């Protein structure tokens, strides 16, 4: 099946089997390996991308569902929230192994876009779909609040 999709602002055709999850199109067909596989059942959040600006688990999103949408991945995400999140992530070294962090960052950016000054409760609610076995959770909370401050100032 030939599908035209827009990834990180670039419109491109892909030839895939119908029903293929977006995750595997990104990783295996487009070589965008920043989006990670962790569970395949939308339980870990490692595959989080933005579809039309909203966070989606790419592992359970069939490719047809994004045929006319804008997909943004960790490689292409930009804007004031993305900059602030990346800065904060780096300033306090949030990641350990880093594997889940693409998904964490995509969820965190979406949170800040929706809620510029999130409380701890807001963060826990927005981020609890993203597992981190290294347990960087305390630093994720800190970094999101740091990023929120940076955007405001």
């Amino acid at each position: 099946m030939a599908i035209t999709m827009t990834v990180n602002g670039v419109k491109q055709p892909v030839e895939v089997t119908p029903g293929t999850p977006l995750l595997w199109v990104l990783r295996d067909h487009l070589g965008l390996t920043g989006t990670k596989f962790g569970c395949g059942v939308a339980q870990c959040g490692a595959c989080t991308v933005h579809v039309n600006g909203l966070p989606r688990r790419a592992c359970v999103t069939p490719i047809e569902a994004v045929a006319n949408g804008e997909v943004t991945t960790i490689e292409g995400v930009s804007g004031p929230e993305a900059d602030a999140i990346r800065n904060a992530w780096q300033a306090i070294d949030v990641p350990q192994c880093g594997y889940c962090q693409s998904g964490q960052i995509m969820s965190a950016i979406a949170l800040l876009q929706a809620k510029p000054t999130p409380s701890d409760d807001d963060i826990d609610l927005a981020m609890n779909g993203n597992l981190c076995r290294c347990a960087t959770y305390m630093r994720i909370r800190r970094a999101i609040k740091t990023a929120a401050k940076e955007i405001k100032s």
Partner: protein
Amino acid sequence: MVLHQKERARQAKGLDGRHQEPLLNLSRRSFIAGAGALVIGLTLRGGAATADSTAGGLRNVAGGDATPSLWIAIEQDGTVRITCHRSDMGQQAWTSMAQLVADELEADWDRVTIVQAEGHPRYGDQNTDGSRSVRYNFTRLRYAGAAMRHMLEVAAARHWGVAAEQCRGVHHTVVHEASGRRIGYGEIASAAAALSVPSQEAVKLKDRSNWRLIGKAVPSLTVPKIIRGEGTFGIDVQLPEMLHAVIARPPQVFGSVKTVDESATLQVPGVVRTVRLNSPQAPAAFKALGGVAVIARDTWSAIRGREALKVTWNPGPHADYESATFAQTLLQTANQPGAVRRTRGDVAAAFEQAAQRLSADYYVPHLAQSPIEPPAATARWDGAKVECWGGVQDPQAARRAVAQACGVNEDDVTMHVTWLGGAFGRKSKPDFVVEAALLAREVGQPIKVTWTREDDLRHGYYHSVSAQHLEGTLDANGRCTAFLHRTVFPPIPSTFRAGLETPSWGELRLGASDNPFAVPNLRLETGNAPAKLRIGWLRSVANIYHAFAIQSFAAELAAAAGRDPKDYLLELIGPPRLIDPRDEGVEEYDNYGSPLAEYPIDTGRMRHVIDIVAKMAGWGRKLPKGRGLGIAMHRSFVTYVATVVEVEVSQDGKLAIPAVWSAIDAGTVVNRRHVEAQVEGGTLYGLSNALYGEITAKQGAVVQGNFPDWRLMRIHEAPREFTVHIVESDAPPGGVGEPPTPPAAPALTNAIFAASGRRIRRLPIFGTDGRDRLASPTQAS
């Protein structure tokens, strides 16, 4: 050559220059091969003629070979490439190893880049487990950096015709202070490359007061890539013409394929073929598990192809394994006299005379390491040699395992190490690399094997299940007079020698044979248990269940004596002193591979971390109803950690962990920021396992398949407050990645006891099958 290598790496990634630093193919070997073309200033073995013949002086520095060329390459533009021979799995091996080299080299940190070493004996020990990267390399990597600086100084001195003693390498530049002349490292590197490697005596290490990187909160070298989705994990490797494999493995260890109907699989679009893999004979070691591999053009097609397979299995010898009944067997064994492994005084006599006698049984189930990146490896077979990529903790073991499985020499196996998306012990077992190599050989095209989450949870090397029986006596004043610890678990060596059932000395030293309690009568016993799954290392290994039992029982004794648990723990540990378990019948005690003389078992340091953490937590303060503090201390990997957990237990059994405090004495610390991160992460790893972690088997097959069944702590369950204190110390560096884990579980359950009066002796606290022990106090033990 260098350009060629870079081109190849670029192609290998299937990228278009997205990665400036090719992580994969810039192996040591290829880099050396390229030295003549672009990279000047390498004093590489095989590069400069002087290196091999004169390097003897730095071949045998404490920890191994410190020959600078093995670790450092300086390019003409001043770029310093530091080879990291340890695997980076989030513990920041790249950063800490580079700090050691760069500090002594006086390199500009901003001009340091990392070359990940492939698996090769030339680097000495590469087995990135046991919390020993810093411990084993602290001295030799500093010598490598200092020796390189020395050579740059000598080269500059000759260049200027002055005495070497008047030249100093500082901030990436050699300076001749008398004349004010300066020359950059890159400019003088090629001259330095022609010099002989100095002897150890000629190389002076910096005084620690002059360290600029070591001991500081140096930012991670991996994070700037991670936040952009760059960097290559094992699962991210892409090669030209690469096919993808997903494998249907026998549900039971040593099971095998009985019948297979692949007709539906071959109809799945994208599927190329299937491959039968032989099941191994015991011992399991690092062999592939066998089964049927589905080979496809992309991962999803391979997954779909596997779903369409119709396989029946021969169950193998362990189909009788039922976790529920096995737990009972373990507990029965733990309640019978066992083999005595350490003894002091006369426990039996003390039991007769005691005013009060207590006993308790503790149970910790199998656990899965479950890194968020499941195992994945890629291999390319060229007819005689095999090249492998993967996130492996022990690339030398991977090489050996692949060589053995493919019937080739180790020299014909190249093992490239990618980043590890978490490991926690799982990736020290390279069975997944063996699978990739076997399939690449069979198919004749590069193959990536991807494990799904179900594969990871159902076909792992599990943390051993354990039962422990503890007995203690109190005299009329509440003092502990005798302490019996009997531990029963299928031992890890069973994975490497079939049939072993006796807990090994190597596992007992993980928190059991080195019990520090100053009681007059003490005995450690073991009971046998057969392994029914592949048993393997998981972050802090047997320390998990030993610390859980001992630190829980210490609090139970305190409660029986009517004493404060922190004060009672200090009394049990006794006065500051050094302990040698070998004085009391312990036949083997290897102290985590570090000499006892340098790294004694020091009860003074134990007391110190307890005192510190108690102050941090405000131990003894009045708490609202339903709140409680629990404390635990454990020495492991020659490091001391004390942890206080605060919990809130509601009437209906809901549990929250608002705060955790932790004090760590790891001796000399290389990176404060990352030690703090390891304490946070290691503690929560222990808490997560204690709350939810349980792998069970039915008819020999693991039940749990994905995160709905195997539960991990999520962000809303993590404490809002977590404070870490790092003890200032000049002692040699201890381990960091694992020591925070063991005290976490007993600190948690001790806190639950303090908050609710309910004592949890069986983990996990919340079962994934709906059990809720806090809500059901009758199940408390």
